[in-house]
Structures are given as C-alpha cells and as structure tokens.
C-alpha cells in the first residue's frame, strides 16, 4: 500500500471473488464446444498479485490449430457468410448484452488473471468491451454505407492474436468487427491471461452462436506462430510486441493473406506553458500509470515546455504520492501488479539503464506486498533523447521527462522515434492543438485528455507501431475485401 500521507486511511475494500467460478483446468474452444486435446501439454496461469495458481490451460499445437481453422472455415463458408447482415448483427448484439450481464464476474476474473485494479476492469475494460460489440453489431447490416464500396464481402477466416494487457478488451476489439463483417475467427489469448477469453467462449455458447464462428485456442508464442503462419486463414490480426509483429510480417510476405498489426509505442505527452495544469497532471498520471503502464499508447515520454518544468515536477511528485499501489482486488487500488515476472525483469532492467546512463530516478514511496510482481510509479528526470529510457518501450509505470522550448521543437522530438502510436497535447490554445495534431506522426492524438477509447474512434499507429486501424469506419476495412466496381 502507498504510505498514507494523510490521516484519513481507507480501510480495505476488497471485491469478493465469490462471484467467479474458475475451473481447475480448461480445454480449448473449437466448433462450439470445449475440447480436451489428448496430447497437448498444459501450463499454469497465475494471479500476478499473489503468485497463486488460478488454473491450467492447454498449449495448443499444430493439430489443434488446424482443427480450429477448419471449424472456422466451415462455419464461414456454410453458415456465417450465408447469413444476412441483420441476423449476424443480432448475434453480435447478444454477445454485447451477455458481456453487460456478466460484467461484474468478468471484471473480477480479469483482475485476478491480469493484475490490474478491479476499478479499471469494472469501469473501463468491461464497459468498453461491451460497447465494442454494440457498436459493431450495428454495422453488420450497413456495410454498404461504410464508404468501402457497394456490398463489401468478408475475407473468410481471421487469425487473431492478442496481448495480455487488456485481455478481454483486446478480444472485443478483434472479434466484434470480424464477426460484424461476416468473418469467422480463431483467437489466441496471451499465455499469461487466457481466462477471460475462455469465459467469452461460454458467452458464445449462451448466445447460441453457430459453432465454429468463434474458436479460442490457448498457448504461448509458439501457438501464435502456428496460427499466424497457417495457410488456411485469410487474415491475421496481431496486437503485441514490435519484435513479434515484424516476425509475423516476414512470415506472411509473398502470401495473399492480409495483415494488420498493432505494436509498441513511445508516445510523447506534450505540455505547453498555458496547459490547464491540474488536468494536465491528471493526464500525465493517467497516461503512464493507468494499467501499470502496460499500455501500447502510454504517454511514456513527458515533453514539458522548459519554462514550467520545475513547477510541473513538483505537482507531479505530489500527485504520485496519492497513488495507491497494491491489491488489485481492493476497490481503492490505483496501480496493480506487473503482469509477470518476465515483464517485471524487463522494467527493472530498463530502469537500471536509466540510472546507468545518468538520468535521475524518483519513485513514489510505497509499501509493496511481499508476494507478487510490483514496481512503484517512477519518474526519471535529466533524460536525454539518446537514453534507452527515452527510446525503448518500457511497458511499465516509468515516465521519462524531457523538455522543449518551441512548438516546432516539441513536434520534432515527439516524432523522433520509429514508433507513432499516440501523442498528447496540453494547451488552452485551440489553433495550436490543431497545428500540432496535423504535424504529429501518431495515429491517435489526444488534446487536453489522454487514454480515451471508444469503439467509434479508430485506433492504430504510424511506423513501427503497426498498420491498420481498429474501431470506427476505418476499422472495418481490415476485415473486408477490396471492392472494385
């Protein structure tokens, strides 16, 4: 728990886990049913806040992946693509409603498997996941109005590989548009966070979704590779590390399989001297400490106008001391556990590089639990653009602070990266917001806010942050054939 700076300590406010029912082990979900592959090895999934084992899941191998793809193929060709858009839409609406109905249970499950605070799962992940299904359900019978040609057709079978940072939400971002546009899917959740995807499979059953439309195979990177390289799929959608994204792009080269990638980022959060300061502090904090910094679009580089940097840092450090770090299932926790031991090692190593290269580290004083994986909210100052912590994605609660003098310089520094996922601009001046936004090479620009997501709002990056968009009209294109008429 954060050391309480005040005399109004909050008593523990634990969310009960009685609402979830986790099996001791899970099979994989193929063709509408859970199957236990005879020879597939199993691995454990743990709660990163306590290191307790939650369940065991399968490491799907080549036969399982092939079976899932075959089921998806049959479902697409015989059932899903033959169905009217209106009928498909009604199935997707059912899934949206089911997510709403079981939101509380799924939020608890997500926090247990991922380590994120229950407040976030409850107030952000679950509502947004349901919203993605609602929004895309409405497109299913309106595709000819999407500006993508008359009567656009589905691609077929989509292989979808998602990361561990927003497991259920990333599933929604992938499955909803794919289904709405008439495709069927084989989805692989991340190895450290399979449980909400497996719960989603149950929702598909409750919705009476035709078998094979959604298939879930669990496993680590090897399963993902099998799926991405499977010749029976028509499209691959990957969200995850830049490294793996490049591998997938290489392996799809020369094939006719379509690809979209959503990779890493090193976003600049740019604060001008006329920024609404208190809200800017909130935006900075939200930008890098929300979800423990495990956010591809995190505002991990703070670019402050030099004239206000000292005052801003004072406000920032003061604000960080009210962040509550600890038990994800406590409703008052702001910053939860790091998702895995491996990720924690990466964060620690990069932070140490910051020390070694001469930056100044400051961490919010907090008492961290003995078990589990934890890292305190941290700020590095005296950071130069050449430092590793200014260039490489840390994917943890670590902020690197740099300064600028003029808007041009801010744009230059912000753009000086192979990444280009997001950026933040804080200023009261509207014309400057629009001027900056038009020059920042980032797929998502937030002005006087940060980390806002909506199914209607396209999301995706420039450069090595990936290509393709998810959400909005633009996001439909990835799942439809190019129309010519």
């Amino acid at each position, binding site marked *: 728990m954060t050391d309480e700076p005040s005399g109004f300590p909050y008593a523990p406010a634990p969310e009960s886990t009685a609402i979830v029912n986790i099996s001791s082990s899970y099979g994989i979900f193929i063709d509408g049913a859970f199957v236990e592959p005879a020879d597939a090895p199993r691995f454990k999934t743990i709660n990163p806040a306590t290191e307790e084992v939650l369940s065991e899941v399968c490491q799907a191998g080549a036969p399982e992946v092939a079976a899932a793809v075959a089921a998806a193929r049959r479902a697409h060709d015989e059932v899903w693509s033959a169905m009217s858009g*209106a009928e498909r*839409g*009604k199935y997707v*609406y059912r899934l949206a409603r089911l997510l709403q109905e079981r939101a509380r249970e799924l939020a608890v499950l997500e926090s247990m498997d991922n380590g994120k605070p229950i407040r976030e799962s409850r107030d952000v992940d679950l509502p947004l996941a349901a*919203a993605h299904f*609602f*929004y895309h*359900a*409405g*497109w*299913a*019978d*309106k595709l000819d*109005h*999407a*500006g993508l040609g008359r009567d656009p057709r589905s691609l077929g079978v989509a292989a979808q590989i998602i990361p561990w940072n927003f497991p259920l939400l990333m599933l929604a971002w992938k499955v909803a548009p794919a289904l709405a546009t008439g495709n069927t899917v084989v989805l692989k959740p991340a190895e450290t966070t399979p449980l909400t995807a497996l719960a989603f499979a149950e929702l598909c059953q409750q919705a009476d979704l035709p078998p094979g439309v959604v298939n879930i195979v669990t496993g680590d990177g090897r399963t993902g590779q099998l799926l991405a390289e499977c010749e029976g799929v028509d499209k691959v959608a990957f969200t995850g590390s830049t490294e793996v994204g490049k591998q997938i792009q290489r392996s799809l080269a020369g094939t006719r399989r379509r690809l979209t990638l959503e990779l890493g980022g090193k976003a600049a959060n740019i604060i001008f001297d006329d920024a609404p300061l208190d809200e800017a502090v909130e935006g900075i904090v939200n930008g890098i400490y929300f979800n423990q910094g495990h956010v591809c679009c995190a505002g991990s580089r703070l670019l402050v106008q030099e004239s206000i940097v000292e005052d801003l840092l004072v406000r920032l450090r003061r604000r960080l001391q009210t962040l509550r770090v600890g038990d994800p299932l406590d409703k008052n926790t702001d910053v939860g556990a790091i998702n895995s031991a491996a990720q924690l090692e990466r964060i620690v190593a990069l932070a140490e590089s910051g020390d070694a290269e001469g930056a100044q580290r400051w961490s919010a004083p907090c008492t961290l639990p003995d078990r589990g994986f934890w890292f305190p909210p941290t700020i590095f100052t005296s950071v130069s653009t050449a430092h590793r912590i200014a260039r490489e994605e840390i994917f943890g609660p670590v902020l690197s602070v740099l300064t600028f003098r003029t*808007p*041009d310089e801010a744009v230059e520094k912000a753009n000086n990266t192979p990444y280009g996922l997001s950026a933040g601009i804080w200023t009261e001046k*509207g*014309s*400057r917001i*629009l*001027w900056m936004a*038009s020059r920042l090479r980032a797929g998502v620009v937030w002005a006087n806010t940060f980390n806002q997501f909506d*199914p*209607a709002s396209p999301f995706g990056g420039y450069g090595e942050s990936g290509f393709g968009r998810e959400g*909005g*009209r633009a996001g439909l294109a990835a799942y439809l054939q190019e129309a010519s008429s």
Partner: protein
Amino acid sequence: MEEGNKRRLAVRKTFKLYIGGAFPRSESGRTYQVLDAHGGFIANVAKASRKDARDAVLSARTGHRSWSAATAYNRGQVLYRVAEMMEGRRAQFAAEVARAEGCGTTDAERITDTAIDRWVWYAGWADKLAQVIGTANPVAGPFFNFSVPEPTGVVVLVAPDDSSLLGLVSTIAPAIVSGNACVAIASQTRPIPAVTLAEVLATSDLPAGVVNILTGDPAEMMPSLAAHGDVNALDLAGIGDVELAARLERDAAGTVKRVRRPQPDANWYRTPSLAAMSDLLEIKTVWHPQGI
C-alpha cells in the same frame, strides 16, 4: 382484443394517448370507434384534440433536450431496448396487426418481425450517423473544418394509414435515432398497434416526451401543428389526400419547417434509404484555424 378462454370474461383495455411518458385521455373527453378490417368493433380509442397536440409538442420539446444531450451510444442502447420489449410482445403485435389489417397470421408475423428488426436496424445507426453523414472537409486554407449532423428538434409525423405497425415504426424510429423528439399521429383507421407500441416505449428507458403518440383525425390536428412555431419538421407520410398535403406544406412554410412529403407507393419491407434520417438533421460546419 382476444377473448381468450370463452368461460372467462376478458378485461378490456381503455385506449389512451401517450404524452410526456404518461397515458392521459384526450382533454376533450372524446373517443372514436375503431373497427377491424371486416367492420367489426374493436374499441373506443381516444380522439386527440388540437390542445392534446399542443401539449404533446411541449413534452416533445422537453424530451428533445435530454435526448439530444445523451450520447449516441446511449440512444442506440435505448432503441435496442425498444426492440427487446417489442420482441416480448411479438404475439400481441401480430394479433393486433392481423385484426387491423385483415391479413393472415403468417403475414402478420412477418410484418411484426420486420418491424422489430427495423428497430434493431435503426438502433445501430445512432452511433454511425456522424461517421457516415459527417465529414472533415479539406478547405483550401490553414483551417480545420468539419461538418457534423445534429437533430433538428421536434418532428411532427403522420404515420401511414394502412401500415399500422411496420410503417409506424419506419417513421418514428428514423426521427428519433439522431436525438429528435416526435409527436406521432397514428393511423386513424388502424391505431391499436400504435398504442401497444406506446406501451413498449414507456418500458424502454426512453426519456419522457421523446415520443408522443396521438390517436385521432390527422386532418383535424395537422393544420395547427403544421403552423406551430415550436415544431421544426413535418413528415407527412400518412397524408393520403394530395390537397391536404399541399395545404400543410404551405402552412409549414410560415416557419420554414423541413417537410417530408407523403410517399404513396412506399414499400415498407424495403430497407429504408438514409433520407428518412437525414431529412430530419441539420448539418453544422465548424472552422478553426491551425496555427502555433
């Protein structure tokens, strides 16, 4: 109304107006007789007066304020809820349509199913309209320029006389999906499904006043509504009399209302064009400089 078990006397319903989320009788105290397709008596239905219509406009104006301030997502959810509630009354609707329009059960069910699916179709438009109709405009200057659709405000619509449910739904839903509120005058000869629809709307989390449904004689109510200074648009779908339609359009010109003219050959089964929604929208275009 079905008699049900012949040994048991049915509790017959009194048919009232739907104004401001409540079900009042007409302030005039009048009713009129509704007959089925074979001339048999169905019920005495409230006969709305000009004053009822005036009250409905007031309610609509209030309803419009909160409805247009809701997010598009929220409106879509409410409209989807309407479809859920309609589905629950599927058998009731089908029976009422069959009796009103004199069609068989199969046709009545097809009409009802299409009407429910029509609501679902419109529910899905709430958070898409801005993306399909709105634009970012590439003006030749250092400006960010965008156009967004906005609801026009209060719409008075005359539902089709012959299509008692599907035509009704196809005029009400497109009016409100964008945030407009409406005063709907139901089919004079076939109003029963409209009253059931009002009951559905009242249980769908739709804010009071967003939809008001009046039963009665459109020719009596419409002239004052067409000239009304706080009504923004008219949909004359159900005005079969060509002369009357022209006269109402002239009355509307006094306040430059947006007018949708009658569509005598409308096939309500067909997927509607976007005009049903876009005719009831304003387009707002905003310019903002881009500069340091």
